């Protein structure tokens, strides 16, 4: 659930909070009544920060243990139906935290309870949406290409796992960075020589040449009848916005010429200004818009006839 990087951050945060707390306690010991009143709120909230960090770490450890439990037979569809039947638990929790937030004595606690209430609501909403979302992912197998788009940090891998499961194809993953997570045994790494040429691509001819050569090299490493993922696609295309379409057009067409049957997936991160791989829409059959970092909220739209 959480990456090793986040795990490190959580441990560091826990340590920082403890250091801060120690420092506050030192002052607490030597200050007068008025000073103590002032410090108490800060000490209390710092303790909560520390405990939250601790809780994240423990929850992850607990989850690791739970993952070891043997798999059952209950299908995803049946699971959702069963959870829906017990959705009143989530609703009760949501109302409970809302009430707590109103009664909370400090702004921090009020915000914390509000956040938990919102999260409980999100759980209910996701539950109602889960089956529709899953069915829409199944729709993707009717096409031959899709674009998965979302903000950086979105759980693209979860969507990829679902697509792989539906397509039942061998996955080849073209990675733009070596530190991206591994989900396939067949990984193709883009090396800096590519990025040097990408940065030098100034016009349509350069972009087409770059795309064609990349497609040819990738084709040599991929099998017909497989699924080819470009992760992250937006790091592959030249920086000039007007070259993006030509680049992907050449790349996808070269791949299509080299294989009878190849499913192409482009994973793309949206920028802060909301722009992403919009220019690629006409070249793919579907766009999966990932809206939640856990990959439970996404929208699939068909973009080509």
């Amino acid at each position, binding site marked *: 659930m959480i990456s090793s990087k986040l795990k490190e951050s959580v441990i560091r945060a826990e340590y920082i909070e403890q250091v801060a707390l120690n420092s506050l306690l030192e002052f607490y010991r030597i200050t007068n009544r008025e000073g103590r009143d002032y410090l108490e709120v800060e000490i209390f909230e710092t303790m909560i920060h520390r405990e939250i960090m601790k809780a994240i770490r423990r929850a992850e450890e607990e989850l690791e243990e739970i993952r070891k439990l043997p798999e059952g037979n209950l299908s995803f569809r049946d699971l959702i139906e069963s959870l829906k039947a017990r959705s009143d638990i989530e609703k009760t929790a949501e109302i409970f935290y809302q009430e707590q937030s109103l009664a909370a004595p400090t702004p921090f606690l009020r915000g914390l309870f509000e956040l938990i209430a919102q999260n409980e609501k999100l759980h209910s909403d996701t539950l109602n949406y889960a089956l529709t979302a899953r069915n829409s992912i199944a729709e993707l197998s009717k096409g031959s290409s899709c674009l998965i788009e979302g903000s950086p940090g979105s759980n693209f891998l979860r969507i990829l796992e679902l697509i792989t499961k539906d397509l039942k194809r061998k996955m080849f993953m*073209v990675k733009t960075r*070596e*530190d991206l997570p591994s989900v396939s045994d*067949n*990984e*193709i*790494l*883009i*090396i*800096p*020589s*590519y990025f040097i*040429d990408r940065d030098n691509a100034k016009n349509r001819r350069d972009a087409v040449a770059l795309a064609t*050569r*990349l497609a040819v*090299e*990738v084709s040599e*490493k991929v099998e017909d009848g497989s699924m080819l993922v470009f992760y992250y696609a937006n790091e592959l295309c030249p920086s000039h916005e007007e070259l993006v379409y030509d680049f992907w057009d050449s790349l996808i067409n070269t791949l299509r010429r080299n294989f009878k049957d190849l499913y192409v997936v482009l994973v793309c991160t949206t920028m802060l200004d909301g722009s992403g791989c919009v220019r690629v829409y006409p070249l793919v059959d579907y766009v999966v818009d990932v809206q939640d970092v856990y990959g439970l909220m996404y929208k699939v739209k068909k973009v080509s006839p």
Partner: protein
Amino acid sequence: MKVLNLTFFSLPFVTAFIITYFTYTSLWTAWFDFLLWTSVTLGFFQFITTFIQTKGALNYSLPYAIKVSKFKVAGFVTAYNENPEIVKKTLLSVKAALGNRGTVFLLDDSTKPEIIRELSEFCKSNGIVYFHRTERRGFKAGAINDAIKALGDEYDLVAIFDADQRPTKNFFDIVMPFFEDPRVAFVQVPQYYEKSKSLIGQGARYQQEPFLRRIMRGRDLRSAFSLGSGTVYRISALKEVGMLEENTVTEDVATSVKIHEKGYISKYVDLPLIWYGAPPAEVSAYITQQSRWALGGFQLIGTLLNSDLDFRTFMDYISGVFYWLEVGPFTLVQIAAPITFMFGIYFLKLSPMIYVSAYVPYFVFSLYYFYYLMRGTEYGLKGFILHQALEYIEFIGVTASFFAWVLKRKVPFKVTAKGRSARSMRPLSYHVIILTLLVASMVKGILLIRGASPLQLWSIGINLFWASWHYFFLITGVYISIASMSEEEKSYLSFLS
């Protein structure tokens, strides 16, 4: 094959001998005439081989995409009384780059107990295997060979890093796939010199540019040789050639020859996969480094002449030997030529008009070709001047290495200093003597102009040109050496003067 190789090697000398036959003035000076012509023919053959090599370099390209490979790697960091802080950072870089693909080993031949203790404790607490020898048989090559023998058959590849050369995080991701080709015995990445405030450091960096960007690229997939650090070997290939060569000061090149002789090829990956490297910052460290490399080059002559290398590969290697001859003893000959002429020793009988009409176009073309070759790199005019000036600074050290090789002397070499050492002006005393002689010859040349015939004017002009050329680069070399000294060394220099 051997006959062809031997013929090629002897051509510059035979050509020089033939020209000497037609141009010598007396038997007493014929030997100097021959040496001067040899310097010209060596330069010409070196230019031709570089021309052929670099033609390939212009078509050099690396793949865009590589299939991630799974080999088990032993990452060796070699150290000998190096600053432990530098070694520790390199060890951590190698560990980060290697990840779960293998093990990091520190091959520490240090003799100082405090360094041994500090590094062994560091290795223990960071999951690094510490390997220490009490006797330094075979120096760095011996340490690597001993460690490989101790590994057994557990690892497929061995990566070698000097204590001050740190790999980037993606080093192994990029290098390993090239070993999918069974013909590839080793992969070499360029060494990296970080930007230095010292002019010597900057010059050393520029000096590497033509070699790393053009020569090595031109030798890719044929005769690119190991640079001693940033090399990843296929262990089975190393074992097949009897491991690293231990009886030479440049074990990397000698081992590369053995590997190429067996028909293996080597891959040169010209990408910035080493992110830290300290250049020699002052003149004595620089001369020590270059002299060691030169001695390695000279020691290679016998190996090359006895080898079964194919002609193209032999030509690549012998070009390196020609380079060291040219930079070392034959630079001395070239500098001596205008001096002897100006002081009335006429050792060469040739119309200056023939010399000008034959040599000037070649000289201009070789300069232009060099400029053409280095376009698009950060070399430029500054790089050219610093590079040439450093070659004039190193020539005495390289010449000393040549004579050490001729006399079969074992020169005890220090590790190239990674900082500044005291009294680095000592090697410059020879340069100051030569500069004085050059100035005297130029003054004498100017005095000779008065009353000279038109033909003599041409001769004086040619010699004045060469004396000025040598003077310019030599004085620039001395200047950058002094400018690269520490304040302590500068105060010592002013005390002496």
